[in-house]
């Protein structure tokens, strides 16, 4: 467990959008999916997920509908809206730019050596 990283503030929404982009999921499924695609490297408090989901629904990036889970439990499924898909693309690009920039900034520099 100790090698799990706390997620950066503000990145939960991005992770949720990414997880849902692969197909409709219920809340618990989203948690599992994030674990799966991140190689279980990210720690998300289970309860903290739901306010995020409500926020994204209110912003019109996700839409929700009731359905049945694989083991026959009634659950609320979330999927991306068109706006959500757009936002995911934007945020992903942003993130990549940020990572490149920060990576470059943190990399050992020739002058320093």
């Amino acid at each position, binding site marked *: 467990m100790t090698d799990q990283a706390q997620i950066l503030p503000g990145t939960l929404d991005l992770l949720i959008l990414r997880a849902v982009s692969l197909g409709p999921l*219920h*809340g*618990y*499924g989203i948690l599992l999916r994030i674990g799966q695609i991140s190689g279980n490297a990210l720690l998300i*408090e*289970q*309860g*903290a997920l*739901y*306010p*995020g*989901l*409500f*926020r994204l*629904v*209110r*912003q*019109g990036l996700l839409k929700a509908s009731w359905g049945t*889970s694989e*083991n026959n*439990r*009634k*659950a*609320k499924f979330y999927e991306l809206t068109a706006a959500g898909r757009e936002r995911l693309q934007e945020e992903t690009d942003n993130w990549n730019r940020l990572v490149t920039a920060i990576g470059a900034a943190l990399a050992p520099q020739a002058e320093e050596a």
Partner: protein
Amino acid sequence: MKPLNSLRFRMNALFRRSQVNAEMDDELSAHLQLRADDLERSGLPRAEAERRARIEFGGYSRVKEECHEEAGGTFVESVGQDLRLAVRMLRKSPGFTLVAVVTLALGIGANALVFAVLNALILRPLDLPQAHSLYGIEDKGGSGYESYPDYLDLRDRNRSFESLAAFNITQAGLDTGKDPAPVWVYETSGNYFDTLGVQPHMGRVLHASDEHGENSAPYIVLSHAFWHSHFQDNPGVVGKTVQLNKHPYTIVGIAPPAFHGTLLFFSPDIFVPIVNHEQLGGPGVLNDRGKRWVFELLGHLKPGVTPAQAVTDLNSVGAYLEESYPKEDGNISFALGRPGLYGSFLGGPVKAFVAGLMLLAGLILLAACANLGSLFAARAADRSREVALRLALGSSRGRILRQLMTEATLIALMGGALGLVGSIAMLRQLSEWQPFPRFPIHVPVSPDAKVYVVALVLALVSGLLFGIVPVRHVFRTSPYEIVKAGSTGMVGRRITARDVLLVVQIAICAVLVTASMVAVRGLMRSLHSSFGFDPENVVLAESELSMAGYSGDKVPVMQKRMIDAVATIPGVQSVGLSNTVPLNMDSGTGTVYSDKETDLRPSNAAAKPYLFNVSPGYFEATGTTVLAGRTFSWHDDENAPRVAVVNREFARRVLGSAEDSVGRYYKTKDGVRVQVVGIVENGKYFNLTENQEAALFVPILQSPMSQSWMAVRSSRDPEQMIPAVREKLRELDSGLPVYIQPWTKEIQGVLFPMRMATVSLGILGVMGAMLSITGIFGMAAYSVSKRIREFGIRIALGAQRKEVLRPALGRAFKLLAVGSVAGLVLGLMATRVLASIVYQATPRDPLVLAGVVLAMLLLGLVATWIPAQRALAADPLVLLHEE
């Protein structure tokens, strides 16, 4: 997201709260089940799996609350919660709520009332099209009287007004075939209605084209109110001919309902062309340039003309008039004023009066807010445990503040609503009130949207003002300290701003109480003081003989017949007649010279006595005591030598001695020597607060007047006498309008200013007292509740009542004493001002002093009664249990 969308979302979230709540529960429990399923699969027993799932999930209700917040319902929703909680809290302490609401209602009601008056009299111009460019012409002294020829010159020669109209107020006798009655008339220039842009309700209004010289336009326009009350809205009256002062006039139209003439206070019954002034009782003055009787000139300024330019223009016309008519028109200088309050003549005093009221009302509101602030602070202190507990349970300070503010706002709105309702009720009374029954004077105040807005804003602002007081308290609250220690804070010993405010408040209250008591005492004394006549058991019958067509020699003959006829009524003791009676507010003065004076210039006059033209029997009928000599008889006519009766003051000033002046002479301004044949007691002639004035009575046969006030003294009830007198006079001439009233009622007019002063001071005094009570109550209740445990222990240890009450209420009474003394001193000083309105208002009156002290003491007792009872009832057992 679009704001509209967001709103819809919030509203949905709000209204579907229970549904949303259930769905949220479903969703979260599904999560827990799914997690438990996984854990079970990994080998845990079901119960243990569910327990683990719940632990991993974290704070369930916190998540739900956060979800609600994210879903967007929370703001509106939490305001709703705040409101519900506020209502619950207020209902739990009805005493506090009642005191707070009533206090605020007083403050806001007083302000709404004064603002409505301000709005109606000063802010709101006359209800006419383009009222903003409407100006009246006045001279530098503030009066607007002009002569008719000057009006015509001003109208035709000025270049600033679109058109210049004129009007005058008079009374005339209207005979519509039954019951002739005096009516109030606006004599208007032909262009009056067109200048103002007033369209007829029915028929037509008057036009400039109606005027073809003196008495050329026998037309009447009825006011809507008069048409309604005297003709029952009958449209058939248009075109009908009626008698006005015995001359035939045609009713040509009805004025619109909203038009009451161009004076705010004074609504006329009918409108008549001013060119017919001669028939309305003003013979020979229409074309006399030296007679200034036209009440006011007014009109719209042309577009682009400033008032200053107009004044310059008018003054150049004035210069022309001065040059052309040096005898009549000297020293002319014009100014412009707002019509409605008769320019600055009435407008000035009215503005000053309303400004004074506004200041007082503002003070009352400030005091109310201060009291509420301390009440709320006391409450916040009492609730510090509740606040601490809520903080400890994770409520944010912001949320708690919002809760307190919601309570404050709720109280403010309730107080504001109550105050507004009260003030509207009072405004309605005020609008219907006719202070002088003989005149069509009323105060047209009705609240409009502006008044409601002001009341609302005042309520909200004051709600925030006193809501802010406890804020500091909340921010300093440390939940740990308070929950641990209970509420054992000591009352501070230093003098706080709140103490100072309370003292100021008590002082203001004491000033008002002192002033109103002085006023009441003065009023009572003046009702029983000597007027120089005795109005009890006297009926006054007023008539203007010219209204029934009497003029010249026919006037005295008719007057004698009237006196003789009324004297035959059983029970009548004496009858007399005069052109006016004292304290009637229309007394005229004459100019007299001492007998030795040869240079009869106005500056050499010996006195300007009030002048009464009286018939034989006048002194007996009015109850004026004759000190020496004789009164008049019917032989003192135009053929007899000129004689007069004077009062003591006249004798002292003009004749040299008060006692043995009978038989001496004075000179009139025409140099005629008049012999004084009798001396009567001094009296009041114009108003009750006047200094002793000289009065001169001359026989009506030697200087006839058609204005006749008949005084009828009888042994019967005045109310019974009225119909008898009316009947007798109708037998003589059924076409003579007569106004009959008991003298005691007639005299109310002169008492009006002091009545008003007394009543308003009384009301303000009561308001001040109520505010002081709530202020002292708030303070005392606070200090008692703070130290209740200490009192309980003291009582348990055997303390006497006195020993408990002194620490509990000593401070409140100390403040009360300081405030009362300050207020009493100030109040006695203010009495000097009051003395100019209220007759015999004197502060050196032991009854007043005792009354004020007693009133303030009573006030203190009332305010501290409940806290004192609480302090004495402190039961140590119960109190220790509570801890």
